[in-house]
């Protein structure tokens, strides 16, 4: 069984992935946010150093920041949040 999650990429993360702002990926059921980071790093080599760096890149799950590892569900939306700079 596998799940499908929607992925949103912003700013430097979007550019590092080759200017992809939205995609979706399949993950094994039971995959966590840590799994997700590894799969994204493999799929987008240009993004790997950023997406594997938990200090720099935060994830948002269904429009909420997540602080620790979470199990993903089919239909989740996960956003890559590189260091912010609003204001």
């Amino acid at each position, binding site marked *: 069984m596998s799940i499908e999650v929607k992925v949103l990429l912003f700013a430097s993360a979007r550019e590092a992935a080759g200017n992809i702002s939205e995609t979706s990926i399949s993950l094994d059921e039971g995959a966590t946010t840590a799994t997700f980071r590894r799969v994204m790093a493999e799929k987008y080599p240009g993004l790997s150093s950023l997406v594997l760096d938990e200090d720099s890149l935060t994830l948002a799950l269904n429009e909420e920041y997540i602080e620790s590892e979470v199990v993903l569900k089919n239909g989740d939306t996960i956003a890559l949040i590189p260091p*912010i*700079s*609003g*204001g």
Partner: protein
Amino acid sequence: MSVVQDKYLIRVSDDIPSLEECNTFVSDPSCGAISSFVGITRDNFQNKKVIMLSYEGYVPMAEKELKKLCVEANEKFASIKRIAIVHILGDCPVEAASVIICASSPHRREAMHCVEFLIDELKARIPIWKREIYEDGDGESVWKENVE
């Protein structure tokens, strides 16, 4: 017909209300004070000439987080009557406003400290990104990172 005005005006968009509009939104007969902050594009960064900033945002989440932030500010500063907090997306040339925050309260101290809290927290946690575009070279630009 009674009209209950919204407590918060929140917008992340390429078309934001003016300072005067934000100020009018928060104005209330019970309030003696309105504090405002306007962030504008500066023409320089570390001796580089800046032409403009360009903003990108995760709009639905940014607006949701701003709403949470307003509720939190109102818990911290209980007398706050209304808050307007708006952020531009897209290009923002030198001297144009990127962010406008207004808060009203009966007395001045809470309005002023609430606005300071709001801009600090906005910079710390709202998913918006700015790219700085420099004059020299072939449109060199970098994604910024809030350091504070």
